[in-house]
């Protein structure tokens, strides 16, 4: 059996026999409940245990939109999805096969995502008339046939939890808070997982509140034992350990990985990092995280707005620090004028855009890849910047390091694109040794050497970088600014030929970065194909899985992924021109497809989706087949 949904109905029939354990390749489970139901916690505990057990995994939380909605409403539902497997994993799972729904609203909000024949475990105590109404149900879904396509297990979780804790001397509210542990215990049984890591965690977490610790422990065990004995659950499932590369692992979100990358940059460069930021969803966590690690040489500056944030970062870069600023789309729009100053001043600067749904305020908590045009073209004049995109949560760590490397080596701004999906999603990370990481070589110019005069716009022959001078360096005093500069001297110049020269220098400098970025890799080449799937950013995993699924159906396509959009890898043209059909799936209306067509004048076929959601592998498979006429 590959997946739970493949299990024959018979397995779910209550019986008196021994409970069976069925092996499956992979599972996607989603915990969903009211914002106050502790679903993020349940999800992350499940994740930990699963990781310790040795599965590959990826996760995705689904927070309610910004404002706390009234309890019991669909708008207030909070979810957490985990995809775990015995083989390698590239997404947090398309459609959950198991849904744990703590109230009617959670059911309502998530049922449309559940795979057909999926398993629903619901807290039947909450299916009161009032709650059904709050959730917007006109009839009880348990009774009106709307769930007939699924396997439903109703558990009176509230009642059972209260019962388990009845002897404890804590408030009813505190008892009810333990419902998530009951659900978790039940889920652990469902997937044959050990309770030990969670029990240890409870011990530590509630060390100072022994009654609460006890309550959580009892609820967890109660859930497990209930599942083990009840007739409602005749079957449980097992996912074998994955064959993982040896090493130490941790589970990490994209925003955490990015923040760690920034901290690593400070260490690897032996230079201070300066973060200028203004809070904005879904980038704020980078600010929060880095503010806690200033001892690593990170100056954190919460500015009055996004403009001040980038300006301060530019000031810091000018002063010799590694300047970085992190934001999302609307903030990126505000930064565009100042980013152009960095282009003109030729200072190293990293600008992170954690993309969300647009335009305007748009869908602040939802992912989208629609700020690519803005990153490439959103400024006045000929204004080239490097554009790098992360493909997975863990990749955020490596890409921000790379962004700093490029920025410093070429004295140029680098835009790093992440998105809300990577930012909050997590996956397991085989941790690198610090000694394996590439250094960031910072070389300030410190003396005149043998020159007659200091030339702030004299360029390195290879990289075209101008010298980086820290104010405070004697003898190299100079002035820079946003007006066009004279070649070499950096003086203000309105000379026509000089302007054209400088425009080309700035463009060429970014192109020279090709020397420092890897070539495009093509995946799936075991079988020949004249179809190439081209992706960028966070859709990597979905495209990967789609390709593999197609291969299983005997449809062979190749895949390549652009981590670097400006400049493009040096073999980009060659790779693209080797295929008859080039398909570009992306979460926008075809921006990268347009860029490829504009760059290579080669027709490509976009697959677009703008729903504030990542691609489903299913959708991709279907759309690719349509295109290929299969």
């Amino acid at each position, binding site marked *: 059996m590959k997946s739970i949904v493949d299990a024959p109905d018979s397995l779910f029939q209550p019986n008196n026999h021994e409970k069976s354990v069925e092996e499956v390749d992979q599972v996607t489970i989603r915990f969903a409940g009211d914002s106050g139901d502790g679903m993020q916690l349940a999800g992350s505990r499940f994740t*930990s245990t699963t*990781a*310790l057990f*040795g599965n590959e995994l990826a996760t995705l939380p689904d927070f309610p939109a910004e404002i706390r909605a009234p309890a019991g409403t669909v708008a207030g539902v909070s979810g957490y999805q985990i995809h775990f497997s015995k083989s390698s994993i590239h997404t947090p799972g398309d459609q959950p096969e198991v849904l744990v729904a703590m109230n009617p609203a959670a059911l309502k909000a998530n049922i449309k995502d559940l795979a057909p024949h999926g398993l629903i475990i619901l807290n039947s105590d909450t299916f009161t008339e009032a709650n059904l109404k709050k959730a917007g149900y006109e009839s009880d879904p348990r009774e009106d046939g709307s769930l007939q396509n699924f396997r439903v297990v109703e558990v009176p979780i509230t009642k059972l939890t209260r019962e388990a804790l009845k002897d404890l001397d804590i408030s009813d509210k505190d008892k009810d808070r333990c419902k998530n542990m009951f659900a978790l215990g039940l889920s652990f049984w469902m997937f044959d997982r050990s309770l030990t890591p969670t029990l240890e965690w409870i011990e530590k977490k509630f060390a100072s509140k022994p009654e609460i610790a006890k309550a959580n422990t009892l609820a967890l065990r109660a859930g497990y034992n209930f599942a083990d004995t009840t007739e409602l659950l005749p079957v449980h499932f097992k996912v074998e350990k994955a064959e*993982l590369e*040896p*090493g*130490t*692992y*941790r*589970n990490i979100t994209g925003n955490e990985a990015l923040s*760690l990358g920034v*901290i*690593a940059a400070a*260490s690897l460069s032996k230079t201070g990092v*300066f973060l200028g930021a203004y809070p904005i969803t879904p980038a704020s966590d980078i600010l929060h995280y880095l503010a*806690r*690690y*200033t*001892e*690593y*040489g990170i*100056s954190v*500056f919460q*500015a*009055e*707005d996004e403009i*001040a944030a980038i*300006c*301060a*970062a*530019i*000031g*810091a870069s*000018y*002063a*010799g*620090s590694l300047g970085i600023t992190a934001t999302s789309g609307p903030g990126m729009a505000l930064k565009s*004028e*100042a980013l152009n*100053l960095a282009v003109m001043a030729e200072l190293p600067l990293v600008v992170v855009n954690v993309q969300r749904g647009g335009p305007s305020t748009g869908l602040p908590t939802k992912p989208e890849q629609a700020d690519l045009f803005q990153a490439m073209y959103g400024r006045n004049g000929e204004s080239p910047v490097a554009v790098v995109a992360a493909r997975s949560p863990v990749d955020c760590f490596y890409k921000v390091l790379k962004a700093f490397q490029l920025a410093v080596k070429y004295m140029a701004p680098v835009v790093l694109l992440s998105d809300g999906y990577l930012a909050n999603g997590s996956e397991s990370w*085989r*941790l*690198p*040794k*610090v000694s394996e990481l590439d250094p960031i070589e910072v070389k300030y110019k410190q003396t005149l050497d043998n020159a007659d005069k200091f030339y702030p716009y004299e360029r390195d022959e290879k990289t075209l970088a101008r010298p980086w001078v*820290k*104010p*405070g*360096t*004697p003898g190299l*005093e*100079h*002035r*820079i*600014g*946003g*007006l066009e500069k004279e070649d070499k001297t950096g*003086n*203000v110049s309105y000379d026509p030929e000089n302007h054209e020269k400088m425009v080309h220098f700035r463009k060429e400098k970014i192109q020279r970065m090709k020397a420092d970025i890897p070539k495009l890799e093509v995946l799936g080449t075991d079988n020949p194909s004249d179809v190439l799937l081209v992706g960028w950013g966070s859709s990597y995993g979905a495209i990967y899985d789609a390709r593999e699924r197609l291969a299983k159906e005997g449809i062979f396509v190749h895949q390549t992924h652009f981590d670097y959009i400006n400049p493009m890898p040096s073999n980009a043209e060659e790779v693209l021109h080797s295929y008859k059909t080039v398909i570009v799936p992306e979460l926008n209306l075809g921006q990268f497809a347009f860029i490829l067509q504009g760059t290579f004048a080669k027709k490509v076929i976009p697959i677009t989706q703008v729903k504030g959601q990542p691609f489903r592998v299913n959708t991709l498979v279907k759309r690719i087949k349509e295109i290929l006429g299969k």
Partner: protein
Amino acid sequence: MTKQYTKKDFASDNEVRWCPGCGDYSILTAVQKTLPELGVPKEKFVFISGIGCSSRFPYYMNTYGFHTIHGRAPAIATGVKIANPDLSVWVITGDGDALSIGGNHILHALRRNVDINILLFNNEIYGLTKGQASPTTHYGQKTKSTPSGNPSRPVRPLHVALGSEATFIARTADVLMKHMQGVLKEAYYHNGGTFIEILQNCHIFNDGVFKNILDKKIRDDRIILLEDGKPMVFGANSDKGLRINALGKLEVVSLEEYSVDDLLVHDVKNPDPGIHFMLADMEPPEYPEAMGVIRAVKEPTFGEQIRHTMKVHAEQAATPNLEKLLYSGETWTVE
């Protein structure tokens, strides 16, 4: 030992390109004359400006300089100062640059008490773009953009600074060379952000706008040179003074009627901003315009605070160890 500099050491080889007669020249001179007296190595000075005639200033200083974008110099300067606290950072800005597009950055630089010095060249007009109304242009004044009279009430730069919780505010003028130098020096020695309004004549687009205050013939009756700890006396014959009445209002009084002891004594360190606000508010003809340092109170600077928390962090946290940090949290090992 620091070299003994002269004014010339601070002049760059860029040709100075303001209009003949522009007040900016004398401000440049005042700065170039003041810096050598501070005993700071030349390379430690950074001049950061926005856009405007005034903002060309850094090109003429043989120090580090950054001519940035319109209105944003205080934000950029904040980054420079945090990244390198050793530098002496000066922001040069105009009334449009600082108070129109850049108002918010002024506000926040001042409230944070970032240890930078902001010199606002107030010519009550947009010079560089050729004569439009600025936020300090008089109500009703005709300019290129307000051919039927400016419909906006002006702001007073020092009001804005006080409203922004500035710890140091002062006013001086292009024509008061010695005074300007004195104020610049006091700004340098103030630990925290400073804000100096310099009345500056734009010879081309707003000529004579400060004549009613600064014209030599009437000047002594139209301005008061405030000095810390001194009673507030002014007038060509030092025959007038300022006192506060029972309703809490400033009054100009004649020293024939009142004695010097009745006058307010200037206290730059008064934590209460109310009187400083009143002083900043004075305008001829009812009052003399206040010149000099109006407020200079001690408050923690932003840099101190940031470095303090970094230190506290460093003390509380384990010794920074990147590898340890990477391997922190819940990890597991596959063998």
